[in-house]
């Protein structure tokens, strides 16, 4: 079978499963008894194995198979989760990731057998023999808890009065009553259809009294992979199970007769439901797969567990994979629609008053395009969770590597950003986190001496702030030593000693973003190669964002990344400079002021104005843009006050032309020299106007 066409899906899904495994194994380390976590891990490992096998990646399959064995033993309770086991598992995940990378590049899994890992896994597996009996005796309940409860889900079915009545009658007529749990194969696409076939087959033999989920839900495919039912028939259990399993794509069917006492319990409500009687030795299990059959659960706890299972199963996001190119096309269409709207607007300005109807249509068109734009943007938005979810694992590794205790606290993972931004933001964030772990946090002894808790804390917070998304990386470490940075900067020749004297603390801290700057005394492989923060800054600036750092000695530092919500369409102020039109993003504009020429003062050869007590430097745009201003220098000047972080600057323009929604177009790969222009846009009359990057003017 040619499977190459599935390669992309395979890679995508494998990535998802690996991420899932990473997260869940981390959880497992925290809470080694959590049945849900173990089941989730098992499921992910199992799917991975299956997928790798289907695609013919034998080595990957072998490794996942051995991992799965370990998980299965953990699930059965015969192995306990231990620190070194978690380490080995993480190493396995890394190895799998490596396979995946090789597959992505070459389409083949490579030749690394990862024998040592397989061996270690087997050692973990073998270790169970020694530990098992003692544990078994000591914790029988746990063993049951870890058991495969899936096959006995029918036990948790609840009965109403009519159904109880039917059961009583069936007993009276001497019919068999079976509880059944049917499991559909994971790969099954039409689950509802398969379930329907199962029901149909069963109806030939008897009567389905009740099902869980309800028949309606099953028809609507509102069930995961299994469903349970209670069935009255005259045929023996073996026959029933055989019939169910003759339906294709049914992975497993398990069932047992509901004993007389149980029926009495149900029918008469003599005993509380919390203690259902054991399913009895009559249980018949058949499984086509080669997997080892998990032991029959001890019923006492099984029910409680499976309840927990059902409640806390995370809702699966219903997603559609959309080719980003298709979205881009849609986006372009919307862009053109907006351009068309703009040209209508400018056409109507010409004959205002004579054509009231046109304005109405324009307003309508405007609302349509705005809504369309918003919804298309939303399609492109993804939560940053996909990026940040790998960080807890990274911090865990760093804890071991650096021998520092630290915890990562994350909030706002659901914050959404444009897909292209999310893809790019991972590396800078990782860098900042590593920095915080390596440079920011002190070692345990130092922390204790300073009266701080031994374990350092790193916070990753994301939230939306107006048209921006803010991501903060914060640590409670030592903070940035300004003097050290100053000395280093001078010794590296970044600044002269005189400059160093005159710089504010904030300015010196910002030197950290200078290329080739690293203050770590020891070069480690975590950070400190001197290529860090300047890369972070350039990457974030490439995304039209900005990064800042604030720090307090002994208390910690905060790195703040600010990113625009969208990159494609913005609200902008159009201005005229020397007869040319330029756009300034509305997001960066603070106010617009009318200034008389004598308000401009000169400080250190720089023009500034004193605006309501704040001294703001003045930038004459015509000078920056190499063009003659058409205004009389005696006249009042229009100054657009723009902000970059906390800093302000006043841009002198000739004239304001009004606010407009503009579509950002790139200037192309050919024009790269011009830093102050971030792009271009097409105006309603077809003319091209350039977009000023005000951040580059500071």
């Amino acid at each position, binding site marked *: 079978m040619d499977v190459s066409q599935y390669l992309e899906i395979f890679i995508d899904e494998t990535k998802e499963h690996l991420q899932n495994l990473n997260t869940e194994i981390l959880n497992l380390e925290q809470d080694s008894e959590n049945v849900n976590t173990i089941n989730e891990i098992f499921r992910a490992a199992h799917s991975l194995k299956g997928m790798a096998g289907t695609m013919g990646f034998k080595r990957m399959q072998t490794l996942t198979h051995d991992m799965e064995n370990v998980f299965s033993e953990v699930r059965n309770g015969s192995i306990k989760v231990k620190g070194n086991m978690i380490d080995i598992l993480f190493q396995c995940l890394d190895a799998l990731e490596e396979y995946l990378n090789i597959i992505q590049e070459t389409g083949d899994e490579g030749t690394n057998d990862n024998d040592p890992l397989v061996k270690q896994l087997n050692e973990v597996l073998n270790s169970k023999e020694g530990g098992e009996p003692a544990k078994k005796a000591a914790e029988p309940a746990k063993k049951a808890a870890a058991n495969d409860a899936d096959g006995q889900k029918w036990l948790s079915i609840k009965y109403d009065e009519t159904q109880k009545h039917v059961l009583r009658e069936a007993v009276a007529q001497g019919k068999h009553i079976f509880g059944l749990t049917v499991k559909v194969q994971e790969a099954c696409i039409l689950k509802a259809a398969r379930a329907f076939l199962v029901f149909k087959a069963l109806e030939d033999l008897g009567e389905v009294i009740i099902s869980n989920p309800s028949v309606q839900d099953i028809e609507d495919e509102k069930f995961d992979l299994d469903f349970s039912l209670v069935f009255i028939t005259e045929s023996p259990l073996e026959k029933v199970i055989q019939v169910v399993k003759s339906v294709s794509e049914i992975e497993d069917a398990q069932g047992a007769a509901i004993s007389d006492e149980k029926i009495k319990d149900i029918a008469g409500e003599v005993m509380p439901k919390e203690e259902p009687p054991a399913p009895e030795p009559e249980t018949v299990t058949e499984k086509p797969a080669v997997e080892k059959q998990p032991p029959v659960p001890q019923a006492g706890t099984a029910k409680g567990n499976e309840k927990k299972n059902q409640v806390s199963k995370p809702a699966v996001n219903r997603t559609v994979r959309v080719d980003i190119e298709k979205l881009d096309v849609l986006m372009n269409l919307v862009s*053109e629609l907006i351009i068309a709207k703009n040209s209508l607007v400018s056409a109507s300005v010409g004959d205002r008053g004579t054509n009231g109807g046109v304005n109405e249509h324009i307003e309508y068109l405007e609302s349509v395009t705005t809504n369309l734009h918003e919804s298309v943007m939303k399609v492109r938005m993804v939560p940053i969770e996909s990026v940040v979810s790998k960080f807890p694992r990274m911090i865990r590794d760093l804890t071991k590597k650096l021998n520092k205790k630290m915890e990562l606290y994350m909030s706002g993972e659901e914050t959404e950003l444009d897909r292209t931004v999310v893809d790019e933001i991972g590396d800078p964030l990782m860098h900042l986190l590593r920095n915080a772990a390596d440079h920011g946090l002190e070692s345990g002894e130092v922390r204790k001496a300073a009266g701080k808790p031994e374990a350092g804390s790193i916070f990753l917070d994301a939230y939306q702030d107006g048209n921006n998304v803010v991501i903060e990386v914060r640590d409670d470490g030592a903070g940035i030593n300004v003097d050290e940075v100053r000395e280093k900067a001078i010794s590296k020749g970044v600044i002269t000693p005189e400059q160093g004297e005159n710089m504010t603390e904030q300015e010196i801290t910002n030197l950290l973003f200078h290329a080739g700057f690293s203050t770590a005394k020891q070069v480690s492989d975590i950070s400190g190669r001197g290529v860090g923060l300047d890369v972070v800054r350039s990457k974030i600036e490439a995304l039209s964002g900005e990064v800042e750092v604030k720090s307090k000695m002994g208390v910690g530092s905060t790195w703040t990344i600010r990113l625009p919500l969208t990159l494609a369409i913005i609200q902008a102020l159009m201005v005229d400079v020397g007869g040319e039109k330029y756009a300034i993003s509305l997001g960066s504009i603070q106010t617009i002021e009318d200034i008389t020429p004598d308000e401009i003062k000169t400080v250190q050869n720089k023009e500034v104005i004193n605006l309501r007590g704040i001294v703001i430097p003045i930038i004459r745009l015509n000078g920056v843009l190499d*063009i003659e201003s058409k205004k009389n220098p005696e006249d009042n000047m229009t100054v657009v006050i723009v902000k970059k972080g906390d800093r302000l600057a006043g841009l002198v323009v000739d004239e304001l032309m009004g606010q407009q929604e503009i579509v950002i177009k790139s*200037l*192309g790969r050919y*024009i790269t*020299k011009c830093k102050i*222009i971030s792009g271009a846009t097409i105006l309603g009359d077809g*003319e*091209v106007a350039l977009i000023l990057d005000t951040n580059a003017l500071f």
Partner: protein
Amino acid sequence: MEDLKVDLRNETTQFIIVRLGEEQYGIDIKYVDNIVRMQHITRVPKVQPYLKGVINLRGEVIPVMSIRVKMDLPVDEYTKATRIIILKLEQQGNIGIIVDEVKEVVTLENSQIEKVAYDSKEEKDYYIFAIGKYADGGLISLLDLNAVVLEKESV
């Protein structure tokens, strides 16, 4: 570099003949995306002098350069015949070049194309990769688009 030159294994190659000042040049037709009339060019500040700015070509922003400035010819005088030829290049994307006039399309057989070596001292010859010979004995310089479009190495 190689892919921008004429593949000599092909039987014939078509060239668009353009006029720059007094001289005529040939441009391989496979790199020509479009020919548009002169239109308003939006100046881009702080770029190389030969980059005239950008134009709007059906919703796309396309940079436009002046070959005359690049070849150290007298600056362009825009007339009714002036055209912008939009080139489609793999590396740089679309780029417009300003020519004084578009004359015709000619088909040359490979035997009629003679490569030239870069031994000429003259500046404008740097941008020519071959000479085409018409059947009637006329000669035409064929532009090396790569050299035209690429930023000149500072000498």
